[in-house]
């Protein structure tokens, strides 16, 4: 499943990328020292004059030996460029995932248990506001309020200028400070969605027949919520986890660009803008891989929380 899916993804993104207007040599058009013949030589050098399927076959043949080619822009290896950006993206997304789960699960349970109460309605309004606000707008508001107005948090980059002079804990603190705004921005959408979903799931489990049977045995309401309902509500949550990862990673492109976060998303953005095909494809493959790995983890997690789909002797 894994491999054919990956091939399908690359075929589509390869085609779409080449169908997009513009080409890697467009940048040179404005340069009076480079004439049409030179541009054509450039074209030939990169093999862009070949039919698309030949180009793809060539690219794919290299990729299976983990050779993603070199960037059109600076001639550096694509894999090297990606690997130096990957940790920043993973850090941001893992934090965002952590925040989503840490906030959405309790919030969802709380609003389900106190269904239709003030708490529930208040959380609903908050969540819908967060959900309907576009991430880039939220990012700008947060940057303005916390970065510019109050000056509490840095608004861009991953570390401060004096990072290398700081002590170990100073470095950690500096990094965390830079993480706050990007993490909040990328978590808000998923957070809103997850907490509403969690609420619906908990309500659904509460209505199941076995809950009444468990109550009839004298289990307290607290015990029912923390043990019986929670365990069952986790099951659909794990499936969602798999769906959340692609949207987070896709979102990285936007958030990282806004916050100048030196991650893979920003690399992709720059590469797309200058039609740096090898880099775009390289980032595409890695993102697809991360997504598929996320799904795999979700599948394994699914078996961990639901004994009914587990094989047991």
């Amino acid at each position: 499943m894994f491999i054919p899916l990956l091939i399908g993804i690359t075929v589509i993104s390869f085609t779409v990328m080449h169908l997009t207007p513009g080409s890697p040599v467009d940048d040179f058009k404005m340069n009076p020292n480079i004439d049409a013949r030179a541009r054509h030589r450039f074209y030939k050098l990169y093999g862009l004059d070949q039919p698309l399927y030949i180009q793809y076959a060539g690219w794919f043949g290299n990729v299976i030996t983990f050779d993603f080619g070199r960037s059109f822009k600076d001639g550096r290896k694509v894999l090297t460029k990606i690997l130096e950006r990957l940790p920043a993206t993973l850090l941001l997304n893992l934090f965002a995932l952590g925040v989503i789960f840490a906030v959405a699960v309790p919030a969802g349970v709380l609003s389900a248990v106190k269904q239709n109460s003030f708490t529930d309605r208040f959380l609903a309004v908050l969540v819908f506001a967060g959900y309907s606000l576009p991430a880039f707008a939220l990012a700008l508001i947060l940057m303005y309020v916390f970065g510019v107005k109050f000056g509490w948090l840095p608004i861009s980059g991953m570390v401060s200028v004096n990072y290398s002079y700081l002590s170990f804990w100073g470095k950690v603190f500096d990094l965390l400070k830079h993480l706050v705004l990007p993490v909040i921005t990328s978590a808000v959408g998923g957070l809103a969605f997850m907490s509403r979903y969690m609420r619906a799931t908990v309500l659904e489990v509460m209505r199941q027949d076995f809950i009444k049977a468990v109550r009839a045995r004298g289990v307290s309401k607290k015990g029912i919520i923390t043990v019986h309902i929670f365990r069952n509500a986790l099951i659909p949550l794990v499936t969602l986890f798999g769906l959340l990862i692609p949207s987070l990673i896709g979102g990285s492109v936007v958030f990282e660009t806004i916050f100048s976060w030196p991650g893979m998303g920003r690399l992709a953005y720059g590469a797309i803008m200058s039609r740096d095909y090898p880099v775009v494809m390289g980032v595409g493959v890695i993102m697809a891989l991360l997504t598929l790995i996320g799904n795999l983890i979700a599948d394994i997690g699914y078996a961990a929380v639901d004994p009914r789909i587990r094989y047991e002797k």
Partner: protein
Amino acid sequence: MEKLLEIKNLSANYFAQDIKIPALRSVNIDLKKGETIAIAGESGCGKSTLALAVLKLIEFPEGEVTGDSVEFKIEKNSIDLLRLKEEEMRKIRGKDISLVVQDPYSSLNPVIRINKQLAEIYRIHHQTCEDIDIDGISKKYLKMVHLPEPQKILFSYPHQLSGGMLQRVNIAAALINNPDILISDEPTSSLDVTVQKKIMDMFFELKDNFNLSQIFISHDLNLISAFADRVYIMYAGRVVEEGKTADIFTSPAHPYTIALLEALPHLNAPGLDLKSIPGEVPAPESIGIGCAFAARCSHSRDICFNSLPELKKINDNHFTRCIKR
């Protein structure tokens, strides 16, 4: 004999949209120590609601339980369950009064192993120290309900067991705290006939071996005639007739009881058409002030529709709610 449970004018309503649906209407039921009573009636007559109402498991926003009192004798003291706070009531559920629900497939948490679920029931009603062998206790009760390989079952998940096995686990779960009263709500109706027989044999055994008082809810009159000491016949949320099992089956007084008994198939008279009661149980919210059975009753007169008949005494134990008597 001493009365263990005395239910006086117990009613229960469900809330749906803006209307109240009265599922149980002023029911009076007594249970003596060591006695087995049966609650019988068609689907929708309020039998299951009665079981839930006694344990006060119907609450806002789902519904409400009202009434005069539910006196429960516990060690010389008498407490009124209706007046108990939720936390005190919780300590009675599963400890002094246990319930076995109808559907064994939806009575256990699907994602927790049996041993953890049994241990939970034991633990919440006992002050236990950590090193007590709860699995050992659970195993004892699983053996008591004739489950083969209790060790294996203890570490299974509910989906790995059959309906009959699950119902036995449920009964074990209901007995694990040695309750005074066992309420079983159609414990065999979702099982196939051969398994039903085995489960019922076990109930007979429990009746003999434990000092258990039982409320047995069923629509199966054959089972009831073999199992219960006294019978309450319910119709549309009310008790229409009560009496000793023998009295009910040999000299039924209420037209509904008579009709129910006539609808039983007879083994020794094959070929006869089965009688059925015309019409169906009215929806609880559409019942007027009169006798709820009047519309289906062949003896009904105008007065039946206009006023509720009094409970009339036939003998010391036998009562019915019909003007015919």
